[in-house]
């Protein structure tokens, strides 16, 4: 957990995030060990390493560790109260949020000076959750806690993609700990966003510009749920509040549009149908472009078509699959 070594003393790849786990206190490591030893063991042969040369040479990781592994326990945050300290301890250590949310360099090490500033992981973009975050309105602590425990949060939405299982797990963690995480994250976010009125801009129900296929698709396929809907249980996020429209890449938006949103297995939750079969790639590009302009009002994404093409043939966890089929 601290040094990234397996039982035989071989180096482990930092895909197992030991550069975060070094921060965890010994008593917590002991507790983890004690719990794991109560579990029924399984026999599992790890698959053979398929990395290309020279990455398949484990001894080279010693060099990586020299550069990037700082085997230090969590030392506490100066000037922060107990709750924020607890949150920092969890985020930097066990929760290892930086594992997805911090940009990485060419050697796949996290850029410590850009902590939690956003990175592409598992075919989703994990947005910045510190500093200037791309959300439309600011997050307060209660909203972050709600989001992290899998709830629907007004003006932000619900945990999607790789965050969905995270939120499901965190919903079973003691509330105090989740609130500590929220307190710490909230303290990292820049606090200068204006509140947005809950009203949706633009007249609802007005006919779209029929020359813009993106506008037409939005009006006929999306508006019924995503605009002020008389059926709150089925309501989608009004897109003025969508973070996915405000990040540098259309990747998340495309994942959501194509695969929809499913509630966690066996539990109630938000549902959105997927549109992968219905939309052609061209229509998807037009729709993404329209939504970015109308609801985020930011500069257009550079190469939506390229992102769409790259996500073809993978599902939303980045797994290669023959099953994802687009419209023709």
């Amino acid at each position, binding site marked *: 957990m601290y040094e990234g070594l397996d039982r035989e003393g071989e180096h482990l790849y930092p895909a197992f995030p030991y550069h975060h786990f070094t921060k965890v206190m010994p008593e917590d490591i002991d507790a983890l060990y004690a719990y794991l030893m109560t579990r029924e063991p399984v026999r599992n042969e790890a698959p053979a390493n398929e990395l290309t040369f020279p990455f398949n040479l484990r001894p080279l990781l010693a060099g990586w560790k020299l550069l990037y592994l700082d085997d230090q326990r969590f030392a506490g945050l100066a000037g922060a109260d107990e709750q924020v300290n607890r949150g920092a301890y969890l985020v930097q250590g066990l929760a290892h949020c930086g594992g997805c949310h911090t940009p990485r360099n060419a050697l796949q090490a996290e850029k410590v000076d850009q902590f939690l500033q956003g990175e592409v992981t598992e075919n989703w973009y994990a947005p910045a959750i510190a500093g200037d975050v791309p959300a439309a309105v600011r997050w307060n602590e209660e909203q972050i806690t709600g989001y992290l425990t899998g709830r629907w949060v007004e003006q932000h939405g619900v945990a999607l993609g790789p965050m969905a299982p995270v939120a499901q797990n965190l919903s079973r963690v003691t509330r105090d700990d989740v609130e500590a995480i929220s307190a710490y994250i909230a303290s990292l976010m820049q606090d200068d966003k204006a509140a947005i009125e809950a009203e949706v801009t633009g007249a609802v*129900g007005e*006919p779209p510009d029929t020359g813009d296929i993106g506008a037409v698709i939005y009006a006929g396929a999306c508006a019924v749920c995503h605009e002020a*809907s*008389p059926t709150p249980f089925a309501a989608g996020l009004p897109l003025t509040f969508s973070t996915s429209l405000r990040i540098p890449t259309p990747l998340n938006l495309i994942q959501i549009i194509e695969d929809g949103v499913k509630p966690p297995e066996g539990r109630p939750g938000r549902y959105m149908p997927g549109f992968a079969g219905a939309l052609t790639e061209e229509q998807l590009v037009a729709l993404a472009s329209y939504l970015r302009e109308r609801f985020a009002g930011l500069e257009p994404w550079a190469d939506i078509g390229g992102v769409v093409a790259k996500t073809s043939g993978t599902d939303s966890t980045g797994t290669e699959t023959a099953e994802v089929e687009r419209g023709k």
Partner: protein
Amino acid sequence: MTARGQWELPRRELLKGGGALVLYFTISPARLVAQEIAPSPPPPPELPGSLSEFPFLDAWIRIDSDEAITVFTGKAELGQGIRTALTQVAAEQLKVDFSRIKLLTADTAQTPNEGYTAASHSMEKSGTAILHAAAYLRRMMIGLAAEELGIAADNLRVEDGVVISSAGERRSYGQLVSGKSLHVTVEDQTGAFAPENYTVMGQSVPRVDIPGKLTGEPSYVHDVRLERMVHGRIVRPPRSGARLVNLDTSNVDQMPGVLNVVRDGNYLGVIAEGRRFKRPPSGKEALRCRPIPVSTIISCNCRQTAA
């Protein structure tokens, strides 16, 4: 049932203004019909199932002179299979082939009003009425044939709606009822076939409505399309218990195709024209109907009452 004239049925012309008719209407509390109330004799014993409200044979079965047999039920087929099951009951007790029977369900002009189709009551109420009505009719047919042929009823059998003697003489139901009315009470319920003799009831008969439902044949009320049919949509409040306080229909009044906005207290609805694909292009702009949620057109204030 062997006395001569037992089965003599009234001629149809005698029906009008019959005192007995009025009597049955006034007994049943569900019938709020403004009629002269004749002095009432003691009520007859309670008949089983829906016969208690609709005791007349012709409420349940009609036999046309061309041998067409129609059975009526006030219950509706919802997928519980009664269109098939009630036909089985009628087929069994009438001794008519299943495929020859036409069952008419839930028609306000033609079938008895048996109230809701719910609570698993259809077979119990409607099925019981049809069972006894059909059995009664079958025995009536045998009785009429016996009189006509001068043979004892015991020497007659029925096959697919035809009464047949041992000598091979045949009288069909259509022939036997010709010129007669079936407006008689099903007062005897002893003639039904016993379960151990069932040939159609108790069999697993494929549902007659399934093939149509699975191939797009008109099957549901949504499939009804009438000439000049218009479309109505209710505007529902955002929460249970909300009151409609304020209504501004200025957007809607201008929209082409909108015929009326109906408000009655908390009840709010919009009526608009539908569109027919075959309308030929004309000089005027073709009317277009867009299925946008109606509540977004009309802005209304709804105040939630205290829960």
